[in-house]
C-alpha cells in the first residue's frame, strides 16, 4: 500500500482562529498560533506538526471560512 503524504496551506489573514480544523484533523497536524494574531486580531491556524499530515482534507471541509487548501501525494 502506497504511503500518503499531505500538506495544507492556511490563508492566514482569512483565518478566524475558530479551532474547528484543529479538532477535525485526525493526525493532530494543526494548532492555533499561541501568541501571534493576524490583522483582524485572530490567532490563526498553522501546521504545527506538518509531517503527520495525510492530506485527508478534513480540515478543509470543516473550515467555515474556506481558509485551507489541501494537497496530497501518494508516495
Amino acid at each position, binding site marked *: 500500500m502506497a504511503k500518503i503524504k499531505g500538506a495544507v496551506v492556511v490563508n492566514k489573514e482569512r483565518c*478566524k482562529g475558530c479551532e474547528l480544523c484543529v479538532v477535525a484533523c485526525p493526525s493532530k497536524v494543526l494548532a492555533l498560533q499561541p501568541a501571534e494574531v493576524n*490583522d*483582524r*486580531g*485572530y490567532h490563526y491556524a498553522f501546521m504545527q506538526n506538518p509531517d503527520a499530515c495525510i492530506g485527508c482534507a478534513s480540515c478543509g471541509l470543516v473550515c467555515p471560512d474556506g481558509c485551507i487548501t489541501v494537497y496530497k501525494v501518494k508516495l
Partner: protein
Amino acid sequence: MKEEIIIAGFGGQGVLSMGKILAYSGLMEDKEVTWMPSYGPEQRGGTANVTVILSDERISSPVLNSFDVAVILNQPSLEKFENKVKPGGILIYDGYGIHHPPTRTDIEVYRINAMEAAIEMNNTKALNMIVLGGLLKLKPMVSMENVLKGLKKSLPERHHHLIPMNEQAILKGMEIIRKA
C-alpha cells in the same frame, strides 16, 4: 466641567463596559452623563465604540463628531477616530493592537501597554480596567471612590467579588501609562 470621550476597539475588549463604568462613576459624582454605543449585528469580532459624556450641566447632543479624549484599542479604530480628537485633546492607545501608531502632533498622545500588563496579571479580561486606570490618571474626572461605587452599580451582584481585582487593574493602569 465637561468631558467628551470616545472609547473604541474590538468587540471582545470590554469597550462598552469600560464606558459604562465611567458613566456610572459620573452618576455617583452627581454628574450628568450619556453613554451612546455603536450598535450592530451580533457577530463576534467586529469593532465597537462608545461615546461617553460627563458634564456638570444638562447634556444636549449625545452624538458628537469630535472628542476631548479618544481611547483606542485597535488599528481600525485608530484610523477612524484619530482625526476626530479636538486639537489639544488626548489620545490613548494600547500598543498591543496598534501596529501603526498615531501621527498627529496637535494632540497629546499616550500609550498604555494594557494587554501586556493584563497577560502578566494572568487576566486578559482586566484589559479595559487597566486602560480606564490610565485614562483616570490623565483626567481625574471622577474619584476612585466613585469609580468603585460605579463598578458596584454596573456589575451584577454575583460579580461583586471581582471588584478588588478591578481596583488593582485600575491602579496598574495609572502606573503604566506614559507619553508616547
